[in-house]
């Protein structure tokens, strides 16, 4: 009989080996899934993980996309990870992302078409503020009325989507757009655009912000007393109160921080790759970032790697969709399996598997 035995000390090896193993198992299970769909599993896996980067036919387009997709994922995931470590579950980054984009776009559209160096910085502030404000709703409801932040933040995503649709077809609609939904093209408005900084690299200000967030998150979590308090609150709430950590302050802080980062991600997206506010502006970065945060072990450097990997599955997935005719849902299943295997394998870092004779106890 197999039996789980708690390790006296959590295993550092397994803590970092499980994500790798989870990726491997996802490839196997994904391959079986693709085979069941009647596709060549090896071709599909290669198409997802290898071709976007190294196939001369696709790499020119796909390589820059890696940073474009990874930027928002990393930016959002770093914020989420800090909250997750404190046991504060912000599931609504997608909503904060939308509101951040709306606030940033609103600044740009308000100033259109005047030039001015101050417009883009103002948009950045507005984007961060929008995400922060949207995250303050679950934060205040939790600290005042002890509501569940998981539910409140998640449901606010759907509210944000409705506001997005209303804006895209109403207040923010392009007056010169012949009545089509969607705002002016912000990326073509020089004072407000978030351009590609190095041609062909995919690097834009949002990616820069993501790298800064990784460094900042690392310093905060591992060098600053606040990071210690965050982890203490997540692991042993009673010990945290004993250490003088005020739980309400931490809720406001963590939700606010992750909201602001998600808002920033939204702003950089709308002024750059997405170009404008449209009904289908949000593509699920806020939700995928949850997977990225866990895949990266809630560690900023891990999140950097996980964000790149997840971006790869996005790009490779699209490629496989085009070239092999895989249904678009299959790539979402693929990403879901990754989180599933990761969480299931997580047990190995705290437990070891032993064979034993059965015993009455």
């Amino acid at each position, binding site marked *: 009989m197999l039996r789980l035995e708690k390790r006296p000390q959590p295993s550092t090896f397994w803590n970092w080996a499980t994500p790798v193993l989870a990726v491997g198992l996802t490839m196997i299970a994904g391959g079986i899934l693709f085979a069941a769909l009647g596709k060549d599993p090896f071709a599909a896996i290669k198409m997802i993980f290898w071709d976007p980067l190294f196939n001369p036919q696709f790499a020119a387009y796909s390589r820059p996309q890696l940073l474009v997709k990874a930027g928002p994922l990393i930016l959002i995931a770093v914020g989420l990870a800090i909250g997750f470590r404190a046991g504060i579950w912000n599931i609504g980054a997608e909503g904060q992302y939308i509101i951040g984009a709306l606030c940033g776009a609103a600044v740009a559209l308000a100033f259109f078409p005047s030039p001015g160096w101050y417009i883009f910085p103002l948009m950045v502030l507005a984007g961060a503020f929008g995400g922060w404000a949207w995250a303050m709703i679950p934060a205040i409801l939790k600290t005042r009325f002890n509501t569940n932040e998981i539910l409140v933040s998640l449901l606010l995503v759907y509210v944000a989507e409705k506001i997005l649709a209303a804006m895209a077809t109403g207040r923010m609609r392009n007056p010169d757009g012949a009545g089509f939904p969607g705002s002016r093209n912000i990326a073509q408005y020089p004072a407000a655009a978030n351009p590609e900084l190095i041609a062909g690299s995919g690097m834009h200000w949002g990616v820069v912000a993501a790298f800064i967030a990784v460094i900042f998150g690392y310093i905060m979590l591992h060098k600053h*007393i606040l990071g210690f308090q965050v982890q203490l609150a997540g*692991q042993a709430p*009673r*010990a*945290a109160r*004993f*250490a003088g950590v005020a739980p309400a302050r931490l809720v406001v802080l963590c939700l606010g921080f992750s909201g602001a980062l998600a808002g920033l991600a939204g702003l950089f997206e709308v002024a750059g790759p997405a170009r404008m506010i449209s009904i289908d502006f949000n593509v699920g970065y806020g939700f995928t970032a949850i997977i990225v945060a866990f895949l990266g072990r809630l560690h900023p450097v891990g999140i950097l790697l996980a964000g790149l990997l997840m971006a790869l599955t996005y790009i490779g997935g699209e490629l496989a969709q085009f070239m092999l005719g895989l249904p678009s849902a299959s790539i979402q299943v693929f990403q879901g399996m990754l989180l599933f295997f990761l969480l299931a394998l997580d047990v190995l870092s705290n437990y070891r598997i032993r064979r034993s004779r059965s015993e*009455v*106890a």
Partner: protein
Amino acid sequence: MTTPLLAIEGITKAYPGVVANSDVSFDIGKGEIHALLGENGAGKSTLVKAIYGLVRPDAGHMRWRGKTFIPAAPHEARAAGVAMVFQHFSLFDALDVAENVALGMDNPPPLRRLAAQIRKVSNDYGLPLDPGQLVGDLSAGQRQRVEIVRCLLQDPHLLIMDEPTSVLTPQEVETLFRTLRQLRSEGRSILYISHKLEEIRTLCDKATVLRLGKVVGRCDPREKTARELAEMMVGTKLHQPERPPHSPGDVLLEVKGLNLRSPSAFGTSLKDVAIKVHAGEILGIGGVAGNGQDELLAALSGELRAPAGAVCVRGETIGHMGPNARRALGLLCAPEERLGHAAAPEMSLTENALLTGAWRQKLVSRGFVNWTKARGFAEAVIKRFDVRTPGAHIVARALSGGNLQKFVIGREILQRPEVLVVNQPTWGVDAAAAAAIRQALMDLAQGGAAVVVISQDLDELLEISDSFAALNAGRLTAKRPVRGLTLEQIGLMLGGADEDSDAAA
């Protein structure tokens, strides 16, 4: 002597990494109260579980009245006539006494008949119980009665009791002992597990001492002193905490008119608590668990806030302050629950040193943690308090209870507190570590600090305290000097009686 009731011969049981029992042999005679003595981890529980059919030994065998006895499950042990009262009760608060008793029986009779039996048995043995009362409304002592009566209804030949007095007041202990003696006179045997040596000396006829899984001594406890028993248990000369004579200084901690609602639905609110502790004084606060100990500690540590004037340190009002502001002023605390409250289980000792030492030890500057300094502080605690661990990088939960407790208390003491408040400082700690902790507390007081020790262990309080007060249902009695206090007076104080209210300091 004739055939013993239960003969244990060469029982050995190993778990991965530890040998819990190694070649343990002893006999329990008919009508005998047999003490099983040993420190935590000596293998008492494993042995008892083997007798009760919860653990199957690797080697050795047992004979029940001369016949081979290997219970594979508790019901087989019960069928033979073994009953056990566990240290932690397995009762449902929402059910009444009779229903709880029925749940623990293999073939319970109809409830009405059972209720009558409970009434009869409980009265016969001097443990009156109302079968219709909800268990949630019972005191710890009464809950234990439910467990005992449940066992007695099975008409056992051998009753195993695991640390039965840890939750009882002295009066309740007396009642329990009368019952146990009555059982003995009926020819029943009792295996009595305890580390309270005085109790064993007054109650038991024989004692078997375990150390590291082996039998290291057999004796008649009535012929030994408590100290001799303790030394058999520990295997070395035991250090007796001691302290030179001293006189109290200024008032360092003052609590007055402290009323506090407990945040927990099952907690006890504090009612008009007043405390005055002088420099160099150790105040012992006794009381059965659940009478407001946790709340009192939280009110002093700053986890629960009170009106500013309700708590003062050296005349400064601090009732409204949070934990770290109080630490800065020199008021340090060590809560009862080691894992999860005093320390974070999954964090390393270095991180746990930072937990309370951050500000007073200056482990943090401008918000940034100085990890080198934090590790240095953790290592200083480990060294000074003889914490057995491979190093400061080990997570707290990997330490044994006694070692972690030494770390937790040491962490506060090394920060040179002006006032130190500890709750259950030696709970579940082996005798040698307990002596070390008590000595450290006394040294601290000798150095001019005011110390408050909240404990359920009366022997401990009487050994180290200068003055004594008792918590009962959230009220604190006036304190009295320990010298000259009789056990009877203490019992009355624990029961909430407080006839002379002017405290002598």
